[in-house]
């Protein structure tokens, strides 16, 4: 009665689907389980995807009508105080021409569905509306399949790929991934605000089809370690703000209050003016980085994507790491099946392949970044405030000489933060990303 598959994948996100697609292309019998009514139904609605990683799975993704919202041609970084802030941005013609679709926005509900459709075309079986509740194991503890919440709901598989995202109940239940500590995850809230396409083009100074991302740090997270982002979709904006869970808990700030204040910020309000809120949601993000990554394989199983804490918090890159790890998992599995060894040793190549890829290299490079932010709260309070007051003062024309202004600014900085601390902060910051 119980059907046998070569591979069972838990989760139809970017990690699970890219793995299933690669496996199906090799003619491997693979089944994917997704608890949402369709792939993407449960996913945070919008985000930036990267053409490189998607191209590895679907080289002709544009021709195959990937549901792109906007091709990103400009990236902005904002550092905000309560009443204003700094803006650095970069735009290049290359992102419109040769490098187009280097990064682009998608609605995840549509994208995940499209991506899963391609995997299905290649022969993967994608079963939605079905939650994997446990893994099947033999007496030796080796994973032999999955149990789902449907009747007659077990299937056996030679290898199970766990790709169920950050909120992995399965990882917690099996103990394969320790429950992340509040320090190592962020809670983000997100709102999608509808605006006419032309209004977005004008407000962001872009041509039709082109878009902008804004990444934002500063006082908007009320002294907590966190970031906000604004992404342009075709006819909506995704606004997202999040902070470290530990900070949120100790400050008892409600995330939606943070979002409301963010929306009222003088640099944000004009961008969203007269927009219509369409959806709102909250989601976890893996922020702990390299040192929180669990052991990613064992007898009969592998872990890919954010379920394995593979997320680059500094660059907000998660979907690409999910896709890359999913693909590498698939390659490892294919090799293991061919050799007939799907035990821990047979699957060990996965860890090596990840280490050799940009995924682990980047995560290692930024391994201290999360701690750095957590340990330097002035980044989200004193510093943006001082910076803003200095800039305000220098730009105010009031008959006071610039020299006098500089002296008073220097004094104010020294009063607010000891210079030695400031120097250490800069040093630690440079090291954490160096």
């Amino acid at each position, binding site marked *: *009665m119980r*059907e046998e598959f070569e591979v069972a994948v838990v989760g139809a996100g970017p990690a699970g689907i890219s793995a299933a697609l690669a496996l199906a292309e090799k003619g491997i019998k693979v*089944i994917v389980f997704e608890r949402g009514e369709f792939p993407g139904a449960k996913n945070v609605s919008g985000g930036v995807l990267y053409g490189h990683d998607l191209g590895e799975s679907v080289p002709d993704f544009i021709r195959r009508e990937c549901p792109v919202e906007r091709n990103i041609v400009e990236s902005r970084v904002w550092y905000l105080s309560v009443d204003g802030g700094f803006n650095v941005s970069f735009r290049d013609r290359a992102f419109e021409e040769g490098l187009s679709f280097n990064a682009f926005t998608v609605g995840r509900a549509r994208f995940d569905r499209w991506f899963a459709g391609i995997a299905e075309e290649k022969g993967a*079986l*994608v*079963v939605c*509306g*079905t939650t994997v509740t446990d893994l099947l194991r033999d007496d030796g503890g080796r994973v032999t399949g999955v149990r*789902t919440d*449907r*009747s*007659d*709901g*077990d*299937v056996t598989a030679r290898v199970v790929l766990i790709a169920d995202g950050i909120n992995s109940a399965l990882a917690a239940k099996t103990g394969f991934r320790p429950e992340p500590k509040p320090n190592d995850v962020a809670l983000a809230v997100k709102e999608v605000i509808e605006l006419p396409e032309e209004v977005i083009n004008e407000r962001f100074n872009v041509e039709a089809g082109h878009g902008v991302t804004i990444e934002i740090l500063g006082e908007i997270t009320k002294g907590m370690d966190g970031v906000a982002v604004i992404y342009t979709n075709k006819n909506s904006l995704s606004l997202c703000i999040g902070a470290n869970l530990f900070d949120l808990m100790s400050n008892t700030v409600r995330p939606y209050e943070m979002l409301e204040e963010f929306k009222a910020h003088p640099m944000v309000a004009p961008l969203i003016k007269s927009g219509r809120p369409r959806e709102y949601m909250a989601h976890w993000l893996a922020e702990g980085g390299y040192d929180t990554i669990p052991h990613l394989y064992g007898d009969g199983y592998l872990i890919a994507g954010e379920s394995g804490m593979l997320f680059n918090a500094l660059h907000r890159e998660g979907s690409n790491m999910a896709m890359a790890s999913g693909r590498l998992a698939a390659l490892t599995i294919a090799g293991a099946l061919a050799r007939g060894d799907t035990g821990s040793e047979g699957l060990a190549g996965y860890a090596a392949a990840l280490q050799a890829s940009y995924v682990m290299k980047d995560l290692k490079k930024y391994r201290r970044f999360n701690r750095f932010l957590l340990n330097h709260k002035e980044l989200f309070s004193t510093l943006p405030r001082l910076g803003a007051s200095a800039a305000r003062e220098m730009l105010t024309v009031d008959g006071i000489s610039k020299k006098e202004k500089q002296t008073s600014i220097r004094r104010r900085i020294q009063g607010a933060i000891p210079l030695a601390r400031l120097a250490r902060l800069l040093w630690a910051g440079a090291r954490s990303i160096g």
Partner: protein
Amino acid sequence: MNFVCCIKQVPDTAEVKIDPETNTLMRSGVESISNPYDLVALETALILKDKYGGWVTALSMGPPQAEQVLKEAISLGADAAVLLSDRAFAGADTLATSYTLYKAIRNLDLDRPVDIVLCGKQAIDGDTAQVGPGIATRLGFTQFTSVIEIRELNTYDRHITVKRRVEGGFEVVRGPLPTVITVDLGLARPRRASLPGLILSLRAVIDKWDADAVGAEVPKIGLKGSPTWVRRIFSPPLKEGGPVFDARKDPVPAVERFLDTIVADEELISELFKNPGV
């Protein structure tokens, strides 16, 4: 027993937008689901099949995407499914719809005589409740509408006894097979597909019949066969709210007035007494 179950794909929302230019429903961008009444009809067929043995065929008329509702039917346990899909069917009103479904059921009947056709009482988008009776009339079968309980199915004497909802109450009636029944929501609670059922449905290839395969006469199908035309679609004016009994100051007279009011409502009282479960 040979069962045929008619399932319509409907938009998954109570607030379907209406195109002001053409006065037709704007269906794009809205998720589609199986008409909830029809899932009750299917569940009923599956329960009867489990009890008396037989074969359940799911039948739907609609665009190619309507295949989805038939896959769902397979996942739940239907043995076969047929999609009636042809541009020529488009724009059908209840007359053309019931004609087309009737022709298809006749085809199935030639293969294997049909005993019971099950329909939803109504579709949640069209809401006319005309298609079931339309099919019954054309087939020359007995019909029971708004059925909320199947009391007895006698496969030897070939008759069925059902309880049905009528204006102000219920009635229990018996009649011979073959029959068409249209079901109300209370009749059964649709099951959740088993995993093997769901997997089977994902792999299933659904039979498609065009107008030729159905054997339909062209003037009777689609827009051509639809004498109904929509003059105007409008939103009905908002109904006034019901009576309010303000119990903030003095609850006793408020409760008394409330009791007087519901006792005066015969329909409500008869519901309460005849069907204590409601």
